[in-house]
């Protein structure tokens, strides 16, 4: 009866597209990871674990572990910064001000709907060491010592990319956290106020514990995003200066454009394995939230 009213072929279109463009490339990745597939010859030879050995042992400018390290630093730093700032802003826009709160929310979310490409191009000019808005503003305030060579300095490039990404992503996280804050019953705070609790005590004892599920979700969203980061790095620095800001995905693109498809696929497949394990826990988590 049920299968007649809800025929499975309804799911056919979605499944077909998903299998063809998501699952098939992922499965093929496992095969090509063990080959020397490249753009110079049509021949594809089985090379065993050669690509993996290359990735785990290479030094110098092709130090893949360095790209992995950059990706992890980027991911952890953006998770911490976005969560802390977004939580502060969410509390400010929920409890701190009443008038114009919605207006501010709309403005602060705006960067999240702009194309990443545009954001990166504009920040490239803002962060220009000589003429950029950031440094000229710092100098006009007499803060010359703060004016750095942001994206072109080996030490400052990665922190600058992290800064721009935080600017872009913080409003998105904030909007999710605001929804979480609004779901906390006002009575809790009223009761706490009657008992003489300070604002900080109320935040620590009521807000934080009740926000834990939402904070878990935002952390996971930031984690999945951070490990896959590509376009912001690609446009801001293209992995430079040197290869100081290369991440896993920009390294994949680099291998791909050099025609070394086998190595590119191996990197992709390793990332896939990590993300699928993470994804499994994420989906369970999101599903539980949605079911309750």
């Amino acid at each position, binding site marked *: 009866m049920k299968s007649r009213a809800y025929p499975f072929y309804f799911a056919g279109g979605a499944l077909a597209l998903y299998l063809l463009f998501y699952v098939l490339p992922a499965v*093929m990745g496992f095969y090509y990871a063990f080959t020397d597939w490249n753009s110079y010859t049509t021949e594809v030879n089985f090379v065993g674990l050669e690509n993996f050995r290359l990735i785990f042992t290479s030094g110098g400018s092709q130090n893949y572990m360095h790209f992995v390290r950059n990706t992890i630093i980027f991911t952890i730093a953006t998770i911490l910064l976005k969560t802390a700032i977004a939580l502060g802003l969410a509390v400010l826009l929920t409890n701190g001000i009443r008038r114009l709160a919605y207006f501010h929310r709309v403005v602060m979310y705006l960067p999240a*709907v702009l*194309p990443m490409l*545009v954001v990166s191009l504009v920040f490239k*000019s803002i962060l220009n060491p000589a003429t950029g808005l950031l440094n*000229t503003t710092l100098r006009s305030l007499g803060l010359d010592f703060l004016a750095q060579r942001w994206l072109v300095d080996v030490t400052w490039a990665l922190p600058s990319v992290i800064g721009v990404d935080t*600017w872009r992503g913080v409003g998105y996280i904030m909007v999710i956290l605001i929804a979480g804050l609004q779901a906390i019953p006002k009575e809790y705070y009223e009761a706490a106020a009657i008992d003489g609790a300070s604002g900080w005590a109320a935040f620590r004892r009521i807000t934080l514990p009740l926000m834990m599920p939402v904070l878990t979700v935002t952390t996971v969203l930031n984690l999945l995003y951070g490990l896959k980061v590509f376009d912001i790095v690609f446009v801001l620095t293209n992995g430079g200066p040197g290869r100081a800001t290369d991440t896993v995905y920009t390294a994949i693109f680099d291998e791909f454009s050099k025609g070394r498809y086998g190595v590119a696929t191996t990197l992709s*497949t390793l990332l896939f394995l990590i993300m699928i394990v993470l994804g499994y826990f994420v989906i369970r988590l999101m599903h539980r939230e*949605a079911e309750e």
Partner: protein
Amino acid sequence: MPMRRIQSVLNHTLALVVSLIMFIPVYLVIVNSLKSKAEAAAMGAALPTALHWENFATVVEKGKLVTAFGNSVLYAVGATLIGTTVAALAAYVLSRNRTRFNRAVYFFIIMGIAMPTNFVTLMKVMQLTHLINTQLGIILLYASMSIPFSVFLIYAFIGTIPRELDEAAIIDGCSPVRLFFSVIYPLLTPVLVTAGVLNLLGIWNEFLLPLYYLNSSAYWPMTLAVYNFFGQFQADWSLVSADIVLTIVPVIVIYLFAQRFILSGMTAGSVKG
């Protein structure tokens, strides 16, 4: 009482400063799009001394933006329609008929939210299916990229539509196809708008897939046209800004009209209730 006044003023000032920081890049491209080349060289925050509206005409012509705009609309609208429709159909049967198998299929599909794309082997798939460097190919790619999240959003929403409606329609002799399109589909409007707008903006803003899979510039969308334009006219920020303004105006307009749906969609999966 004065303490609270001071606190309130501080809060409002802080919110205003943060909002300003969030708005700076949009402000910068707007003012610089109207400056002369020399004036826009540093991409400064000052207002233009004279309004150079002709910048827009120049970029539309030099950047081939009419074609690019048409392509962007085609990809975003086409992929959104296809992706959202097949996702709604799948979410509907998977949510209504929760057998073990169907639940497994549901989880299998939404795993795609976390799955990274293997662009190298995907290129192989595009070649094998002869979809590489075609507009249909890019539309199907975007449609499939939107499926996991759309299924996730719509699946949860279908759970809130009473089953009694289906039963009444079935007793009245409704076929499964009619049941879905005349009874269920109209009730899905809110979630379809949310999923649709999110997909539309996501596709409009994306430039990786065309970068990999569209070689001929006649097929490029707005974002890739901007990227290419930037490569050619790096020294001319007034033109680059004008190009950027034309790319983000549709995004901002859609955002302002649909922010209610966007903000609700963003929170749907994350906060219960």
